[in-house]
Structure formats: C-alpha cells, structure tokens
C-alpha cells in the first residue's frame, strides 16, 4: 500500500506541468554550499599521526563556499563558466618543543578560490518535468591560506594551486510549490531553486611541486547547499 502511494506521488511530481510556465531569461547561477574538508597535509609525514592531525585532530571542519556562474550555452543542458570563493578554518593548540600541548592557540585559515566550467543537464526539467538536475564540473583551484600563532598574528601565508573535478545532483524545489516559484521568478528573476549535493575530487598540491604541501581533500569533498538559477 505504502509502495503504491509513493509511486503515485512520484508520478504526480514528474507529470506536474512545470514547464508550462513562461520563465524569465537565464543569465547564470548562484550557489551556496557547506561541507566538511580535511586537507591531506599529513601525506608522506614522517610521524603518525602527522602534524595536521596532531594539532587540529582528525575531524572535517566545515568549509563555506559561494559559486557564481555565467551561462554560456543553453541547448543540450546549460554550460556555465564561473568563479568560486570560500572560507575554511581549523583551530588547535600549539606544541612545546617536547611535543606536549601548550596553552597557545594556532589556526590554519584558507580562502579557496576557483575558476570553473559546469555542464548542467537541466533539459530533463525543462522538457520532461524531471525534478532532478545532474551536473558535472571541472575547476582550476587556488587555495590562499595563512597560519596564525598564539598572539593571533600571521606566521606564514601562501597559496597552493591545483584542480578539481566532480559533479552533483540538484533537486528542483520549484516542483513543491509552483505558484511560489512563479512569483519568485516574476519578482526576482530566479528561474529555479535547487537543493544540491556536490561531490568533487580535489588535487591541490601545486601540480606535484616538491616544495608544496598537499591541500587536496583526504577523501571526496561532499557538500550540500542551495543553487539559484537566474
């Protein structure tokens, strides 16, 4: 019984006349995402645990990301060129020379920036009313970072370059309230609002430089957020 209800609900969702409305022109998109991140600084470390895990622990602090893109091509899906910026920080305690924990704080802070190319398969939504939008993305990444010591001042700063590839899936929220979606489009020009899950593999080690640490994520970077197509 429950299964039939679910099938009926899904069918109703898919057959909803979303494409019937006249949408405003599409210029690009704005994306806000949040996800955990753990740089692979300890890769090749002489000790275990390595310096990152010793000072900051083994967790995945949150990384905030904002991505803006301009639509370049719209036919078989949408191709966008975009820029991204974010913020990440990990905080811990400095170490005495004997390796024991001190009372001084130390932090690693980072503003990741990116130039990206995205292909979003939104024709599934526009032509067949499927409320799911898969996408793929490749990016050039530049992670601007700085480390602070106990007094709060910066002790070292730099930037590490690399690239990333990945993709994601957007759930078009317009399908849940099409009237509201139409009003939003009329009032603000936002064509679609999506909840997105983004998965990417990062390779950020100055392209294999021997004098650079590895800021690639230790695992796939999974993040969640909202995407506005306008």
């Amino acid at each position, binding site marked *: 019984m429950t299964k039939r209800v679910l099938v009926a609900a899904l069918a109703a969702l898919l057959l909803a006349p979303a494409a019937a409305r006249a949408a405003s022109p599409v210029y*690009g998109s704005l994306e806000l995402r949040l996800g955990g991140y753990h740089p692979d*600084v300890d890769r090749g470390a002489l000790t275990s645990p390595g310096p990152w895990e010793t000072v900051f622990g083994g967790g995945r602090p949150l990384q905030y990301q904002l991505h803006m893109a301009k639509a370049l091509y719209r036919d078989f899906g949408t191709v966008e060129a975009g*820029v991204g910026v974010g913020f990440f920080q990990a905080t811990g305690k*400095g170490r005495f020379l004997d390796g024991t924990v001190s*009372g001084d704080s130390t932090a690693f802070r980072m503003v990741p920036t990116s130039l990206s190319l995205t292909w979003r398969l939104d024709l599934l939504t526009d032509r067949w009313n499927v409320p799911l939008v898969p996408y793929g993305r490749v990016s050039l990444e530049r992670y*601007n970072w700085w480390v*602070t*010591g106990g007094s709060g001042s910066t002790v070292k700063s730099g*930037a590490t370059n690399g690239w990333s590839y990945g993709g994601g899936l957007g759930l078009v929220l317009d399908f849940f309230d099409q009237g509201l979606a139409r009003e939003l489009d009329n009032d603000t020009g936002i064509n679609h609002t999506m909840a997105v899950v983004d998965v990417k593999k990062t390779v950020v080690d100055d392209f294999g430089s021997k004098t650079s*640490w590895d800021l690639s994520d230790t695992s796939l970077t999974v993040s969640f957020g909202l995407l506005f197509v306008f």
Partner: protein
Amino acid sequence: MLRRAALLVCLLAPLAAGAAASAGQVNLSPKVVGRTTCSSTADADQIRFEWSVVFSTTTNTVQAGDTFQIVGSNTKDCPKTDTTAGILTVNVGPSITATAITGTYPGATDTPIHAIDFVNGLGAPYACTGASRTVYVCVQLRRAGTTVGSASAPDGLLLELADPPIPVGVSITPGDSALNVSWADGTGSGLATATSYRVVATAVDPAKDPATHQATTTTRSLRLSGLVNDVTYSVVVFARSDGGNESQGSAAVQGTPRTVEDFFTYYKAQGGVEEGGCGGGPAGLLSLAGLGALLRAFRRRS
C-alpha cells in the same frame, strides 16, 4: 462585551505607552561612582547632567525668572514630600528659548557637581564608605517657589562603595612569551559585581625581568604577552566593579612561558616541505584581486 473590552485595551495601550514615554528624563554620566570617585572633587570625576523636562502644568512655556534645580533625593522620582533640599540651583540662561525645556550641566563656565556634593547635601545616611546606596537625581523647573516641570534619572546615581569579590581558581597555561591566565569570580554577600579584571605578572627573580606586566579584560581569561621565555612569573588577578572599585589580589600563581611551535613551525619541524607556495605574498593578493575583477565584470554583463 469581552471583544469590546479587548478593543478598548488595544486602543488605550498606545496612549498609556505614550504617557509613560513622555516622562521627563535625566541622563547622568557616569551613572555609577566608586569608592574613590565618590569622595573626589577632581575635574575628571565630575558628573554631567542632560535633561528633558516635562511640564506638570498647562503653562508649557519657560518664563523669565524660571530656574532649573538639580535635586538629590533618597526617594525615587524626588517627591515633593521629601525633606531633602535641592543642592544646586541653575539659572535659566538667556540662550534658552521660551519653549526650551532641555538642558545640560555643567557648561564651560559652570561650577562642576561631584558625587560628594550629593553625599554632603543628603546628610547623615549618606557617606562614601559602608554599603552601596543610590542617590535619586531629578531636575525640577522652578517658578516662584513651586515646581512646574520635572525630570528624573530612572536608576539614580549609584554610590558603589563595596569591592567586587576576590577572583579565585586562577590557573595558568604557559604560552610563547606569554601566559594564558583564567580564573573564576569569588563569592560573598554585599559585594559589588565584577565587570572587569586586571592581571599583573612580575618575575619571581626580578633580575631576569624587572618589569611589571599587566593587562585588563572584561572576560575571565587573558593571554598576557610580552613576557620572557623560561622566566618564572608570579601572577595575581584583581577584579574591578563598574564604579572602579578594585578587589584585593587573588592568591598568586606561578607560571613560566616557553617556546611554542605554531602549526606551521611544528609542521616544518616534522619534516614538512611547504615553503609558502608560488602564490604567497603579493602574488596571492594579485590573484584575489583578479578574482574580484572577474566577479565585477560578470555583474556588469548580467
């Protein structure tokens, strides 16, 4: 019937609120004076008054001969039945227009008023020692011996004469040329509230560091920097109240700053290879500026 009553309440509530808001008010600066300030006649310890008087009569204009009177009282809103005499009378100056009912004191040539003036004016129950107490301060517009308008300071002037409690539980964690000090508020009855703290560190062996290091904070922890590594310091914490009263020092605790490796130094000490990257410094800034320019161009086109 019930609905009509509710409607009436809704209609009258704003009027009542307006009436409350129209009460004359006196702003004092400072609102709290400590034990030392209370008995001081130094210029820095004078009290400034700013008021907006509301008329109590239908004649709502200032007339020639009207005077403002600043009154200290032991009763809230300085009622007329209070036997307390006005301690100062300020004449309405020629610069005040016929409709002006606001004022400030002292002006450039006025004689300053200090907390001790209220204490002396209010007599025996008041002093700058013993328990803390409040002097209620009002400004009255006087005409031919009667009060035709008034304003009052909502919380009066607090003569804060008690000390805050002595900080307890002082603990120290060494840092790099610094000590991270934390503590808790002590307890006790009749004491003032601690609103800030002073932390003082002196070297146990003054020959190694003759300076006295101190810093203040409004929280219950502090990183006292500027110390010398491997020198042992004795640290004492004092609590301060709003009025500036300072408690006796806490029990002294010793701590020794030591060299601390921040994350990057520790990473390098563990064999890390990072040198700062090709984009460090100006190049990094340039790349961020480029990103900003791209965003700007994007916004302009769309």
